[in-house]
């Protein structure tokens, strides 16, 4: 069957899914790209900037979307979810459901790439930080929306005078959260704080950290530039309490490098909530018979990097939280494995 065009299903139109769909399409195979939301782009659509270069994430995204348009063999279904999946020996028989119209479409695919992204830990489990109770406490992805508005010049008069970022909210917590490090929070927190100080140089900005993890090309330099050039204050300690304080918020912590309890008054507290697998991913993993780890992240099998089952592959945050660049690399890797599989069929 060598040389015969075959069809792959890609679930999720974020950075990982887009890259996988593009590469499989460019290799001459048909692709069905399914996206739950109205637009392709996933998390990249929500971000105010990229890192380690301060760029608009939409620039790269639009490049990808343009390339995708040139591939007539890639069919894009937005507002669509997988309503059923039956393995049929040489692939999967699927039903796609449009969430707006309720319309169902039956399709066949010889391989699937799951690229459904990740979700955020429910920060309300940390009663001591008051998320859901104090209006000034939010999670990072909510703060990202404020950054995007400020960047456009909107609502700047409402900008806070001081912001505290708290990392490891749900990550590296064996009791209330997860033992793993969510990996992306150190970098996006540095980016958010840097962006905030770029927009409002007069404001104060504190990042409470246990460690800052900046292992990547230009990552360390990026974080150092946020400290040195944007003058974001890094405080080593995990805050114990956020409490209302005369219309503002008070963060209590220990400065563990000095060994003293400290307090800081801020207007806004941004929680870097742990990245967790989506519930939908767990259901999909079951119906595609894809391997997952104890937390529910997709897991590679048989020495592959992106293969989670017989004809099912994965990329991006559904395997483990990753930044846009990582998602793109994994998308390309998943595509390579799908193409290799098709070539062997």
């Amino acid at each position, binding site marked *: 069957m060598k040389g015969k065009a075959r069809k792959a299903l890609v679930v999720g139109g974020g950075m990982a899914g887009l890259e996988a769909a593009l590469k499989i399409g460019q290799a001459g195979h048909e692709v069905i790209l399914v996206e739950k939301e109205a637009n392709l782009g996933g998390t990249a659509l929500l971000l105010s900037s990229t890192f380690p270069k301060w760029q608009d994430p939409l620039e790269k995204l639009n490049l990808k979307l343009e390339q995708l348009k040139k591939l007539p063999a890639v069919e894009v279904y937005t507002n669509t979810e997988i309503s059923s999946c039956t393995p049929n020996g040489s692939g999967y028989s699927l039903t796609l459901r449009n969430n707006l119209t309720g319309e169902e479409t039956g399709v066949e695919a010889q391989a699937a790439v799951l690229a459904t992204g990740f979700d955020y830990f429910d920060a309300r489990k940390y009663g001591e930080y008051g998320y859901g109770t104090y209006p000034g406490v939010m999670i990072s992805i909510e703060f990202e929306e404020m950054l995007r508005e400020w960047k456009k010049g909107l609502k700047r008069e409402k900008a806070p005078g001081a912001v505290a970022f708290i990392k490891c909210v749900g990550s*590296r917590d064996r*009791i209330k959260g997860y033992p793993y490090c969510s990996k992306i929070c150190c970098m996006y927190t540095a980016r958010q704080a840097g962006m905030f100080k770029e927009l409002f140089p007069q404001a104060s900005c504190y990042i409470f950290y*246990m460690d800052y993890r900046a292992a990547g090309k230009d990552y360390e330099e990026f974080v150092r530039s946020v400290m040195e050039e944007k003058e974001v204050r890094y405080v080593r*300690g*995990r805050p*114990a309490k956020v409490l209302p304080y005369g219309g503002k918020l008070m963060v209590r*912590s*220990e400065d*563990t490098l000095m060994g003293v*309890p400290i307090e800081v008054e801020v207007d806004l507290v941004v929680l870097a909530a742990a990245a967790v697998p989506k519930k939908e991913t767990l259901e999909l993993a079951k119906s595609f018979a894809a391997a997952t780890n104890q937390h529910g992240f997709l897991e590679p099998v048989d020495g592959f990097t992106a293969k989670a089952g017989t004809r099912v592959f994965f990329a991006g945050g559904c395997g483990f939280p990753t930044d846009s660049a990582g998602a793109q690399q994994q998308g390309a890797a998943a595509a390579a494995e799908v193409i290799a599989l098709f070539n062997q069929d």
Partner: protein
Amino acid sequence: MSFQVGSIDRTFRDELEMACNVDLDQCWECGKCTGGCTTAHNMDYTPRKIIQLIRIGAVKTLMSCNTPWVCVSCRLCVDRCPAGIDIPRIMDYLREKSLAIKDHGPGVDDIILFHKLLLEEVYKRGRVSETALALKFNMQTGQYFKDAGLGQKLLRKGKISPFSSKVRDLNKVRSFFKQEPDRREV
């Protein structure tokens, strides 16, 4: 001389971990215990530092510092600790161990005296009479006129009483002491 990390004695730590059912390797040194601690500002070593002192086997410092005696076992640290380390249990253990020391220095000795007097009160009446306790403590520490003005005010407002009553079933309270006769001393 620099601290010799290679020659750390684990005996004290191992015994403590066993007795308190804790694993100190799980500590991230994040300081969440200390940030939330209600009395950390009065401690000479914060709860996080106590864990580190145990890890480096600094038994002498642990036995003479005021931290275990300042800790009020409110358990906020346990609620916050991402590693679930039972710090109040450790403080309890340190208190027990450090009682063998005769002279902790004035700050700590006074606290220990207060603990003793309080437990004596409980043994005697089944409850604590603040007036008697404050008087005894101030007398024994030579602070004869401390709280005199405040005491009068409280007395006038009926907040404290010169008479102290006993609980109905004193033996029931005393039975707690009988279970652990060692503590009778404390």
